[in-house]
């Protein structure tokens, strides 16, 4: 019994969210079609999971939740912009976008790493402000310089005046490529449930790679630094370099994840898409039971599932329970902030006590 209680206490966040999701579904059962909900959830899982997974490495390295992931997301968008500008299309174009994003992710990830190494102990807030700052630079580049300074010429992605990228870009060449590749359906309660198998294989490869990496020497160093920076330093690990490595991996994965995310949606809000990524991916990871200091692949999977189920269900539940769909939207936003805020607070409280 004591063991069960301990287990429940340790997993209080995922349990709470499971209860929320299930009661939301029950409350809204009249207005929810389960097969449609299932399709939505599968789509959202394939769309978001890669991004959520990209947050794990910095947590292991003791750098907390990587709010700077937005920098990676921007690099992913750079890849998409370049490829769409060329007018390329097909699966090749999709992977080309990934290829283009990687060098950018490495450069900007390196700069992020330099900054975060100067801000030990306050990596999260620095990463967050960095994301806002980078957003300014991104806008300056793609709103003011795209066209005259940066050789983007495809009128389809530019604003009418020829300066600045369009506010939304249809990803004609890269959209949906990976998802379409292999998307069988299985019957589920009378309706077909589509499963983007190729995307899930891609995500599974990342999971395997992450597990493998954490077992290598480099991965072990990461853990050591995450547990105690000073002990790691004394035992001969180059702490700054290890932390840099964590940020580089996370930024590159964040870029790839953003490409998967946007390709699935099919349109890019050029100046907004990246902003939404950080908070929601982080909240999803935390909902799965991860903390600032501990995150696993299972946390990411469970969290993404729960968070996005809640995302789907809460407006409908809000409509039925309180007569307002708007409240559901504010509620899920509140949940996203609250879950991050409470986790941060709990972590700080625990570290202080120990």
């Amino acid at each position: 019994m004591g063991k069960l209680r301990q287990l429940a206490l340790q997993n209080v966040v995922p349990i709470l969210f499971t209860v929320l999701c299930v009661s939301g579904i029950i409350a809204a059962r009249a207005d929810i079609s389960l097969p449609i909900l299932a399709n939505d959830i599968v789509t959202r899982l394939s769309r978001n999971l890669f991004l959520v997974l990209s947050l794990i490495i910095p947590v292991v390295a003791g750098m907390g939740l990587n709010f700077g992931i937005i920098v990676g997301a921007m690099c992913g968008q750079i890849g998409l912009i370049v490829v769409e500008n060329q007018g390329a299309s097909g699966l090749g174009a999709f992977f080309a976008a990934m290829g283009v994003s990687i060098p950018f992710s490495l450069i900007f990830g390196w700069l992020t790493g330099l900054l975060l190494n100067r801000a030990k102990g306050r990596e999260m807030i620095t990463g967050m402000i960095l994301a806002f700052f980078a957003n300014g630079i991104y806008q300056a580049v793609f709103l003011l310089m795209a066209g005259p300074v940066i050789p983007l010429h495809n009128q389809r992605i530019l604003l009418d005046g020829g300066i600045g990228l369009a506010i939304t870009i249809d990803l004609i060449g890269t959209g949906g490529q990976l998802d379409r590749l292999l998307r069988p359906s299985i019957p589920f309660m009378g309706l077909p449930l589509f499963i983007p198998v190729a995307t899930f294989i891609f995500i599974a490869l990342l999971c395997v790679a992450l597990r493998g990496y954490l077992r290598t020497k480099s991965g072990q160093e990461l853990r050591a630094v995450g547990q105690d920076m000073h002990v790691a330093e004394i035992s001969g690990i180059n702490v700054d370099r290890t932390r840099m490595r964590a940020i580089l991996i996370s930024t590159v994965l964040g870029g790839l994840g953003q490409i998967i995310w946007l390709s699935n949606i099919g349109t890019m809000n050029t100046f907004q898409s990246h902003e939404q990524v950080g908070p929601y991916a982080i909240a999803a990871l935390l909902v799965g039971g991860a903390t600032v200091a501990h995150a696993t692949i299972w946390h990411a999977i469970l969290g993404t599932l729960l968070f996005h189920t809640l995302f789907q269900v809460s407006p409908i539940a809000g409509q039925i329970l309180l007569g307002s769909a708007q409240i559901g939207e504010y509620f899920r936003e509140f949940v996203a902030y609250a879950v991050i805020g409470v986790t941060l607070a709990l972590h700080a409280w625990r570290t202080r006590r120990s």
Partner: protein
Amino acid sequence: MNPLDWLKRLGVTRTILAAFLLVLWIVSAVATELDLVLLFSDCLVRTGMNGILVLALVPAVRGGVGLNFGIPLGMVCGLLATVIFMNFDARGGLGLFGSIALGAALGAGAGWLYARLLEAVRGQEMMVGIYVGFGSVAGASILWLFFPVSNPELIWPLGGEGLRNTLVLDGYFKQWLDLKLAIPLGGTAFVPVGLLAFWLGLCGLVYLFFRTRVGMALSAAGANPRFAEASGIDVRSMRSLGVIISTAMGAVGIVVFSQSYGFVQLYKAPLLMAFPTVAALLIGGASVRVAKVSHVIIGTFLFQSVLTTSLPLVNALVGQAEGAQALTNLPEIARLIISNGIILYALTRKESA
């Protein structure tokens, strides 16, 4: 004092921003037809409008909890007070000062709770503060949807849900402070004496507060907690006091902001307001650990003037040019880069580590 020493005392950020502002003004005067008097009047209004919010950060920094990114908590309290007074149809000075008083009281209460939370998360105050700010704005959004009001001017005319996004202060207390004792400068330009006096008066009060026994104890608790503890100061309650004053002043700040702006912005409007506010304080020369009233005055004026000047300036310069519409985004982009750049600089400075 030789000029080099003087520059050193001014500091890097202040020098750059002051030089930038000067350039903007010179360009405005030389290259455009902008009405400089009006521009200057706008700068003063915007300074007074934002000044109290910036001032509100000082007690928290002094108390040792760093930059108070949770200031939207205070703002939400101020907005709530304004909505309540508007609902009772309180107009003019009564509405304004009633909102200020009630807002400050609510802010003090919320600040007390917030201070208890921050006490539990020592070391991560700023990060937790950001989420307290976000959470309170999102939570208040739900409140606005359900808030029981009877005044038809506050709800959507055709039976939409909850309070309007923006409440119009015309006829309530729009620019009540701005126009008090205002010195007209011709046209629509004026010096908002009442607004500036109210802000500078509060600045003076805060300055005097830090000269009192309690104020000094508060500063000591923030600067060196162990030493303060040893000399018999209750560090925890002093720190809490800093947070409470800060949150209460945040409430006052948003009421004054709204009256000057002429609108009460609800829902998501205050979500990101902490960042430019913090940036203004830092531009004035403050850091994560040090903040003075002079930093508030200099920083608010410099930052707000740069923002106020750059928008019409860019519009006047770019204005008619073919296909250059995108360039009108320049001021907003500059604001993002300047305000977050300065916060990054403060967070990564060696002094603060």
